[in-house]
């Protein structure tokens, strides 16, 4: 009766396998987690992620062997609810928040997650991008009302201290989606933030980034707005956390840019400051990064491809279609893992004209098993 255990090895793509296991209800075994490393086994942030999964589900069984090099995960049901989680400082909040976005719509109770940790860094997707680009994509699948990401505190590496509140409604099933028209970029927006440094840095970043788009927005439409800056002056947050956490523990600044097309395709780029970098350099770099992302084409930025593909698979048994630019390694592995868990293969067709890929899939007819009826 029990379903087959899917086996994977290696520590990479850890999150997605666990998330897919929860969604598909199939147990998964991941072994050889850094088995040849000098520091073998699961890292702290991975253990923290497992703890988070344990919090948002009921009945999950997590078995980790003595050396920590092998994990057996038998998924339970997604219960959600109000949960707070300290993400630590090894990875940013994005590491934990991203997979939760995929789980949240299929929960028993609506998600209300509070994360503490680093909000912007150079490794993980920042909360700004998640708020301004990733979460907007859920609208295409019919998840709209009640979706919210509130950034109440910022935190830069290495010490963090940020706080983010993620709320997501519960749905019965998703809608199929066709998104093949990438349109043309009509505006570029961004958020520049800085902690424990002069708020002037934010303006400097924006000016530098803006100079790069001069050529495109000379005539009309395109404009760059400065959203948030100088977070060190912003009033602090929830009183419960105030006592043991101090906002803005480390100095730093970051810039995230979102290009929006006529068909509201969102292409993103973001960078956080490396030590000793000037805001101008960072602004320029981010702007160029966005240009190279735009050049790749597709209806969605390369870092968010996975979410679209996953939700396409989880939609009803209808054809969903999306146009993507160059696939990242992460996305490719995601496609393979989706095939292993859901037995769904994407039809991938190259569009030679635009040098993009058309990915088509038939959903598995996923419905929210956890949602109660009355």
């Amino acid at each position, binding site marked *: 009766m029990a379903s087959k255990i899917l086996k994977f090895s290696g520590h*990479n793509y850890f999150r997605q396998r666990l998330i897919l296991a929860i969604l598909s*209800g199939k147990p998964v075994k991941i072994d050889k987690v850094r088995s040849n490393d000098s520091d073998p086994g699961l890292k702290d942030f991975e253990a923290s992620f497992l703890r988070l999964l344990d919090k948002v589900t009921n009945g999950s069984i997590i078995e980790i062997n003595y050396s920590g090099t092998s994990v057996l995960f038998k998924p339970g049901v997604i219960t959600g609810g109000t949960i707070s989680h300290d993400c630590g400082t090894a990875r940013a909040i994005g590491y934990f928040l991203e997979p939760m976005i995929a789980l949240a719509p299929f929960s028993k109770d609506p998600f209300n997650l509070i994360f503490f940790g680093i909000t912007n860094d150079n490794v993980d997707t920042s909360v700004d991008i998640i708020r301004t680009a990733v979460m907007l994509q859920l609208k295409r699948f019919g998840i709209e009302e009640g979706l919210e990401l509130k950034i109440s505190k910022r935190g830069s590496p290495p010490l963090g201290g940020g706080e983010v509140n993620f709320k997501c409604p519960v749905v019965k099933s998703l809608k199929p989606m066709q998104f093949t028209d990438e349109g043309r970029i009509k505006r570029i927006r961004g958020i520049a933030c800085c902690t424990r440094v002069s708020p002037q840095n934010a303006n400097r970043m924006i000016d530098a980034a803006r100079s790069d788009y001069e050529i495109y927005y000379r005539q009309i*439409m395109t404009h760059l707005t400065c959203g948030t800056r100088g977070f060190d002056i912003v009033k602090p947050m929830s009183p419960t956390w105030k006592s043991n956490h101090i906002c803005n523990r480390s100095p730093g600044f970051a810039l995230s840019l979102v290009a929006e097309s006529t068909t509201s395709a969102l292409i993103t780029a973001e960078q956080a400051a490396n030590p000793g970098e000037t805001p101008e350099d960072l602004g320029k*770099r981010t702007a160029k990064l966005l240009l190279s992302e735009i050049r790749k084409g597709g209806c969605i930025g390369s870092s968010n491809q996975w979410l679209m593909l996953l939700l396409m698979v989880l939609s009803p048994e*209808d054809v969903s279609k999306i146009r993507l630019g160059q696939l990242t390694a992460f996305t490719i592995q995601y496609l393979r893992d989706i095939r292993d868990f859901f037995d769904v293969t994407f039809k991938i067709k190259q569009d030679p*004209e635009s*040098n993009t890929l058309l990915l088509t899939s038939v959903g598995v007819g996923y419905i929210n098993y956890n949602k109660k009826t009355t």
Partner: protein
Amino acid sequence: MDTKEHKAHRPRQSGAKKDKKIQKQQKIKEKNPKAFAPVSGRKAEKLARRKQELIQKKLHVPLVDRTPVEPPPIIVSVVGPPQTGKSTLIKSLVKRYTKHNLTEIKGPITVVSGKKRRITFIECTNDMNSMIDIAKITDLVLLLIDASFGFEMETFEFLNILQVHGFPKVMGVLTHLDKFKNNKTLKSTKKRLKHRFWTEIYQGAKLFYLSGIINGRYPNQEIQNLSRFISVMKFRPLIWRNTHPYLVADRVEDLTDPEEVRQNPVCDRTVTLYGYLRGTNMKPNMKVHIPGAGDQYLADISILPDPCPLPYKARKSLSEKQKLIYAPMSDVGGIMYDKDAVYINIPGSFTKTDDNGGPGEKMVISLQDASDTLASKLQEASLSIFANSVPLKASDLNEELYDVSSESTDNNKLQRNRRRAMFNDENDENYMNNELNESDRRAALTKYEVRNSEGNVNKEITFVESDGDISSESDEGSEDSGSDLDGALRWKSNLTNKAENMFMANRRVNIMQLIYGERTPDEVAYNSLLNSAQDTMNKDDEGPLKSEEDFFRLANNDAGDIKILKAIDSSKSCFNIESLDGWDDERMLESIRNRFITGSLEDENPNELNNSSDNEDDEVCSDFEDLETDEVIKAMQSEEAKKELEQEILTQKRILLKKKFDAEYDNNDDETKVEFYDELKEGISKQLQLNREEFDDDDPHTRVMVEGFRPGTYVRILLKGMPCEFVKYFDPVYPVIVGGLLTTEENLGFIQVRIKRHRWHKKILKNKDPLIFSLGWRRFQSIPIYSLNDNTRNRMLKYTPEHMHCIATIYGPIHPPNTGLCAVQSVSRDNIAGFRISATGTVLDINHSFEIVKKLKLVGTPYKIFKNTAFIKDMFTSALEVAKFEGAAIRTVSGIRGQKSEGHFRATFEDKILMSDIVFLRAWYPVMPKKFYNPVTSLLLSTKTKWQGMRLTGEIRKDLNIKTPINPESRYRKIERASRRFNPLHISKSLQAGLPFASKPKLFKKKRSKPTYMQKRAVVLEPREKKVYTLMQQIQTLKKEKDKKRKVKQSERREVHAKKSAKQEALLAEKERRERKEYFRKEGLAQKRVNNSSDEHKSKKAKI
């Protein structure tokens, strides 16, 4: 969902109908139109609202209808109690459709009923298992009712099962109407049964009447009418079947190696099931459930040519050739399918008789009796080389050869001839490949196994095999995906076609293969997969071998980068900082200019998008397009081309404008009517259209990979590790269903269902008594815990409520909320007396733990009472228990609440309690539902109706002859309560003194028996007092005297008056008497006169 053009109505041009219509119209004209218009605005509004309500009432939630263009045969099940004429009805219908005389009905029978419709008939036995299974798959139920008997329990049971599983269409059929001799009773019975049937289904449900039997069949005319009704039947999609793939097996074959069976007769079997796919797409590696036989993973699934295809070109009616019948398990057309052999029955020409003559004939007949072929006998023959050695078998040798040798051996040829007869079809080639005969199949199977097991070790071998033909890439891909049994078998069939397909699919397969291939994702991503079109073209030319070589080199090259990447699990893609330097260049910036809205489409750039041209729905931004096209004009060089283009643009513009205009003005009133509904429906139909078109130009392999096997195709499903009983005790009368499970449904968990005992079930259901549930595809036994949810907790119940829903928590396979279920206590035939369905319900919630509680009341008595505290005994047995409950709230019967404090039985109350009080602690004890799940494996039994699961508590007691234990404590007995004696309330003096009230207990002293001093003392009045007193007395006396006199006088007066009135009355009476006398005298005279005159008349007449 396509809107079919109906034939327009042609009104009568002449005749009575035409005249009637003209008259009607004239009448309308005569009417005063103003008379019927609503006078008040309020009334008009009310009318309009009512109309809208009626419109809304008609609407149903639009469901997606996933039936494919060429739908699978609809399943018509014939259900009814025994001896109602089920078989006769099927025989008659089959005769009507195909001119075939069925002798026996076993398993599904598929016939072509029309140009676009096929029907599968299934007969349903009255076994509970079959009834449940058939209710889950049937599209239309022909419910047979013996009119001479009336309704039977089976009918209602089946209807009840239908209701919880989606309620497919039901058509009632009354039979045995010829038994009624009296026409009047026939009529009344019909009416009675009809109305009862209507209450069960809906008012006006179709009920058919079949009179007597002619030639073992129902009358042709009636059957024809019935078949017409079946042919026009429309079906609403049912939610469960619209979300799950399923198949009704019409043929079952055992493919296990006979040798293996011989060595171990109870070894697991390899079984193939054949049937039409229904529901949604079936995925190649899906887990399926076979009700009655358990869960299985599909080992292989392959498409077979349709054995009963719809006619290609059909005129108004079907020709005889197109009237096909396919019933492999029944005896149809002289072909009998039995397990794995086929028998051809040729009646008349050859019959075996006992009295055979010569030795030659005997030999021939003995040869016919041989159970195996010569070849297999040869295979079985053993030869022991040495006296003590194990005998060597031919089959042992042969098995080794199977991999190497080709499939065509002598015995194959022999069997193939027999095999071919079963489908007399033209394209033998296909059949030979698909319908491999026994040994062929076995060979294929072993081959498949070998490849699967050794796939990783010696890949070269498989490569050599598949490289032998031209399938260099796609075959590789298919082998990876693991669904290649059939592909590998068919590879020889049509090479040219395949080559062509491959060439077409080459490009795509390349990308898909690359992405789903063996290389690590980093390599694929960094291999500049899409950087330039030229690169990909090169790759296409080079083929896989080249890329195979690249494999190692590339990895080495990028090893450094990849290693860094590997360490990070992040969706953010890594980039080279150097690569960004290019963006300083103005040309680079210019190259993506047209990705911006400010850019133009002038330059020919590989990045250029021509979405606007290839995109179907261009509603995004029409202005934008105009702008674009203007620029295109500029780019055009030649004048003519320019003009042409201009024309085109103009026409396009016009069309756009017209669309805009239409949208604004044309359908305005229609849209407002049911805008939302129409929008929804349109969205659904659009999506369906897209679903259909998307894979039209794809090769079957990709199609299967991406969307699975479509419903409507005839497939062969290979299952491994089936229990041997499935084959051993296979009985075609009991349906074999293969129901696909979605990923989550494979798991077990706790299910909370809302359940209600069926009102016809005799007893209420006992908590924790096992029940058999029918849920989703499954039938399983589980132990429910009944509970009721008051808003704070889920409280366990001992029994289900009589007429109310309650919650039951069961352990079993997870099913989505809102799935219907029904429950029975037993599926065996033993207790058939009552109504077998115990309860019905729906799934509410799914979880891995549920909190159900029962009340626990701990009772104690005080043994020492202080002011507000008391020592309480008998509540707990140990100090540990007390410690556990420290701080818990306790109560007394009189309602003084208290709190447990300290360890040793000491409790604090709000007030002082009495020694007679009972102190109790109300607690809630969690009840853990048992994890008991027992699938009903009825198909694995020799007698399918004898499945016995866990017995009910009562049954066990009955079997073991144990009496129901009775706890004397919980018996009801008369409670004798001694009347309570209350001691007087004693209030101490000091307390009394301190009391602030005016009334004190000392004031309420008892009355004394002797008069007190106050009462008995003499009172002497003062002179003045005396004077007053005497005066008052005198006045009183005077008044009394006066009153007395007045009374006497009054009575006297009354007497006089009475006398007077009596006199008056006498006078009046006298007067009345006189008047009456006068009246009657006059009357008498008048009468006399009349009599006299009549006498005179008479006498006159007599005289005359």
